[in-house]
């Protein structure tokens, strides 16, 4: 099985689907094109599952491909998956068909119709797989920038009234980050060209190079700023609420659950593993920024009166936890952060999709326009509550394990860091439950009267998400078994190890 270029096939299937959709005759009915699209995404999912089953936990990078691409730069077309990459690729292939099913009619009235909507989604899926699988910095950069195109069109063509403005804002922020990163990408070429092996962009080669303190720190900053914008962290987060407010729920899911993970994925893969010295140097500042993101995002979520904006701000808060876990650089923090990326993807997807159902029914996303929905649509209210509870990391649901690991990792790193971060668990309860209270409880408001409950397609679309959230809450082992070895690798690359507990067997006298 390892001989075929499986990852290339995996990323080409959705891209092929996208091309097929584009060239379908104009008179093709929109339901047929939707079926074709979801067919491609399901095939991708099945292949993804097969690859996950064939993956050997702890076996390092697998399904590797390596073809020299641009010899002059040392750029390779190199793909491969470690545990973290596998987790995020799986997240991508799981979420795409779910988003399609949940957004079945969302693209009908957009700029390029349903066909265009689904085609862009498939293109985005393929490119995202490429981002997470790339083991060459240059290739990563190309995929990284390329993902902006489908998102731009999805937002600008299918969103709310302010969609064009939001799309441009998203683009400008991302481009800015990309440009800063580009400088570091160029820098990598320059530095690697000085080594005996000549210029290279292969991560495996670059991670062996000692860049020296100053150069390493500058290049670290270039990558870090781009990833902080992507993640997004305070103070470069403001594009996200605007974009989420105007995008369709499906687009927001792909954006926040999948694409934003590139930021935190990149921090581990490139910042930590290529520039360990610089990462340790930056740790105090990054930890403070991460805590600031946690609290700031949560406070802003409490103050939000618009549902997608609230969810977007909550993601700023959650990304703060992920970044915190990454930069405390111990097993608990890093494993927690890796796991958090996957779990946050699930829980935010559920929250965006279910609130999308709600907003579509009411024709408004303002919390103040709702009230008493539980009375008329109990299933909708129930799924909304479960999604919300997973966002607040209720034990028994998958985000709990990741948040606890990050919290404990932070505590091991510095009790102070944990003491501030932990305030996030109170704030999240306030914004989630207050939102639920205002939307779902109380007397049935005008405009909510007669609201239909969910239909079976809508339930069927989010059910797998909630099921996964529940199962992984009690049994996260399938994920941790691939994540832990990749965390070990990161830690050995960074050169840190876990501190010993204060009291060990020997010291405790009976």
């Amino acid at each position, binding site marked *: 099985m390892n001989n075929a270029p499986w990852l290339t096939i995996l990323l080409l299937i959705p891209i092929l689907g996208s091309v097929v959709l584009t060239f379908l005759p104009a008179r093709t009915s929109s339901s047929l094109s939707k079926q074709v699209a979801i067919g491609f995404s399901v095939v991708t999912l099945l292949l993804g599952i097969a690859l996950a089953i064939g993956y050997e936990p702890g076996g390092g990078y697998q399904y590797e491909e390596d073809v020299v691409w641009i010899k002059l730069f040392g750029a390779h077309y190199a793909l491969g998956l470690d545990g973290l990459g596998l987790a995020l690729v799986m997240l991508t292939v799981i979420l795409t068909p779910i988003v399609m099913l949940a957004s079945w009619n969302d693209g009908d009235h957009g700029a390029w119709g349903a066909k265009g909507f689904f085609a862009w989604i498939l293109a985005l899926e393929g490119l995202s797989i490429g981002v997470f699988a790339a083991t060459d910095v240059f290739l990563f950069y190309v995929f990284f920038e390329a993902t902006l195109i489908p998102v731009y069109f999805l937002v600008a063509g299918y969103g709310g009234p302010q969609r064009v403005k939001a799309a441009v804002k998203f683009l400008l922020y991302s481009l800015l980050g990309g440009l800063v990163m*580009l400088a570091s990408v160029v820098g990598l070429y320059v530095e690697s060209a000085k080594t005996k092996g000549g210029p290279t962009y292969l991560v495996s080669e670059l991670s062996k190079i000692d860049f020296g303190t100053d150069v390493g720190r500058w290049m670290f900053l270039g990558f870090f700023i781009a990833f902080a914008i992507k993640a997004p962290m305070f103070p470069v987060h403001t594009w996200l609420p605007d974009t989420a407010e105007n995008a369709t729920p499906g687009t927001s899911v792909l954006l926040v659950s999948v694409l934003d993970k590139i930021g935190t994925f990149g921090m581990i893969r490139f910042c930590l593993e290529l520039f360990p010295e610089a990462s340790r140097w930056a740790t105090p500042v990054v930890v403070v920024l991460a805590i600031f993101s946690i609290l700031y995002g949560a406070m802003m979520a409490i103050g939000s009166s618009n549902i997608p904006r609230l969810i977007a701000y909550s993601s700023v808060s959650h990304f703060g936890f992920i970044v915190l876990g990454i930069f405390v650089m111990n097993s608990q923090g890093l494993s927690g952060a890796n796991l958090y990326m996957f779990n946050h993807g699930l829980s935010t997807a559920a929250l965006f999709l279910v609130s999308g159902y709600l907003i579509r029914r009411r024709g408004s996303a303002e919390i103040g326009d709702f009230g008493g929905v539980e009375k008329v649509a109990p299933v909708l209210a129930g799924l909304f509550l479960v999604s919300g509870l997973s966002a607040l990391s209720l034990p*028994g649901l998958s985000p709990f*394990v990741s948040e606890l690991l990050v*919290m404990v990792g932070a505590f091991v790193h510095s009790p102070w860091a944990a003491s501030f971060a932990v305030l996030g*668990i*109170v704030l999240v309860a306030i914004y989630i439950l207050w939102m639920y*209270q205002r939307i779902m409880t109380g007397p049935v408001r005008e405009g909510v009267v007669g609201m239909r409950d969910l239909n079976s397609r809508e339930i069927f679309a989010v059910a797998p998400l909630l099921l996964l959230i529940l199962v992984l809450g009690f049994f996260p082992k399938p994920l941790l078994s691939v994540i832990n070895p990749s965390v070990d690798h990161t830690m050995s690359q960074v050169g840190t190890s876990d501190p010993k507990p204060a009291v060990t067997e020997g*010291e405790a006298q009976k």
Partner: protein
Amino acid sequence: MSVLAEEGHHVPVVDPGAAGSMALPLVLVIALPAFGAAVLLLGGRLTDRWGHLLGCLTVAASFVCSVILFITILGRDASDRQVGLDLWTWFSTGDWKVQFGLLYDPLSALFLLLITGVGGLIHVYSIGYMEHDERRRRFFGYLNLFVAAMLMLVLASDYVGVFLGWEGVGLASYLLIGFWQYKPTAAAAAKKAFVINRVGDIGLSLGVGLIFATFGTTSFARVSELTSGASGGVMTAIGLLLLLAACGKSAQFPLQTWLLDAMEGPTPVSALIHAATMVTAGVYLIVRSQFIFEYTSDARLAVAVIGTITLLMGAWIGCAKDDIKKVLAGSTMSQIGYMVLAAGLGVAGYAFAIFHLLMHGFFKANMFLGAGSVMHGTNDDVDMRHYGALRKAMPVTFLTFTMGYLAIIGFPGFDGFWSKDKIIEVALTQNVWLGLCALFGAGVTGFYMTRLMLMTFFGKSRWEDGVHPHESPKVMTIPLMVLAALSLLGGLLLLNDWIVDFLSPVTGVAPHEEPPLPAVVLSVIAVLVVAVGVAIAWMVFSRRDVPRTAPTKVSVFTTAGRNELYGDAFNDAIIVGPGKRFNVGLAAFDNGFVDGGAMGTASAFRGLSGRLRLAQNGFVRSYALGLLGGAALVLLALLVVNLG
């Protein structure tokens, strides 16, 4: 470093044996109600007709399992009564491995009987109480969920497992307080309970962090082996963090404000969750962590002081309220205060904390269900000023309630007499001031409970027009009778110090200490203090008519009590108000400064892009151009580098 020597006694280590044949009932005890909850909540309307029966059946079966388990360990040596069962590895990273495991020992054994026994009775009672509610099936689903989570809490073998049950019961409590969601007050009370509990959870989260950082493990068995090696400061810190957690869940000062609001929930919920079981979880946590608290007298003192403050506050509130459920809620706060005080007294107090917890579970569940029965007969009125003379209209409720009343005030022979007396005795022995406060609290208890009895069941009727009080159906009164019997007979557990010996593998054996006065004398004094409280109440409320509307010209003490000692006012003034103002400011900051700053930097790009947009006659393509430009820049840079 070790405090062991000065304490002069042995701190028991958790060291469970294999479950063997007990494994099946141990798993079933949790799995049955969990299964019930799943069926009822996912099954939808299909289960409407028989849902409540399934709900009762699963808890009843769970009770049978608890009894089987209990009998099994009773037949064993005292040293062989800890049973462990590792189900699977929940998660593991680095050196931290958390098992999804169960620990069954004398402490959890008693809790199992209480939760499934009293819980089962309350399930049965709810069949009648919720009969006309169209969402009854869902109510039973939530109740089952609660029972499963509470069992998880007391059976977990690891602090993280406790966390699962801890928040699980919090969720069930949230769902049930807000069960009548269409009432805005209920929805608000539910959220408040959850959020304040989360403040307590800060303690549990950081506590888990500190325990792991200190010992490299969070399982009870491993931690209890290692605690003797840790420094006193660390142990005090862990103890205080666990105390914070306990304050949230058990409504202890300063996190008490949610409990009175929680009375918005249906009354069986108040009986089960907010009296008999969930709110005592904090006491469980402290007693379970005795291997930590035994090494820190500072944290123990903090526990005892918090308990004492709360027992007085709760009693004070109980004196001033006219809402029967809120009087009982204040009383619950107060009685849990007694338990927390006892837990803070260390080895000498742990067993009595648990003993009082069980007794309180019986008599308070009895009285809450009795209050529910009264409300059932008076069109859900809760204002005691609208009651009066109900003893004739509701004789069974009156009699059973009276048993609860006698038990809580500590009438000789009834439950509270045995359990509260013991706490007062141990408190007086260890710290006279705390002991005197506890003694005074007993007198106040006599006062407010007598006030409740007189206003509800005696005097002239002050019923609202159209209210015709009537006795509740059998399905409600039979559980009341069972609980009334338990309110009388519970004290048998203290026969020959049985409960103290039974719990000793968990709580340790206290060295004998002489109380300042002989125990019998103390008992007599306690009864006299209670009698004074009862007499005052009798003089105030029995010899004059009770006004139908609450008098407004009252002492500052009453006003303070009616306002729940200004806990909410304090929170609003110090946290909520400034928080809201801060939030408004923050929103402006985010839109103006942060976004403005970032977008200002980007405005140059925006201008550029605007021009490109014009040039391209289609702004959408401007990005493609941007990409092209980016690629060109890369090439250019590479060329420069290569050439240079």
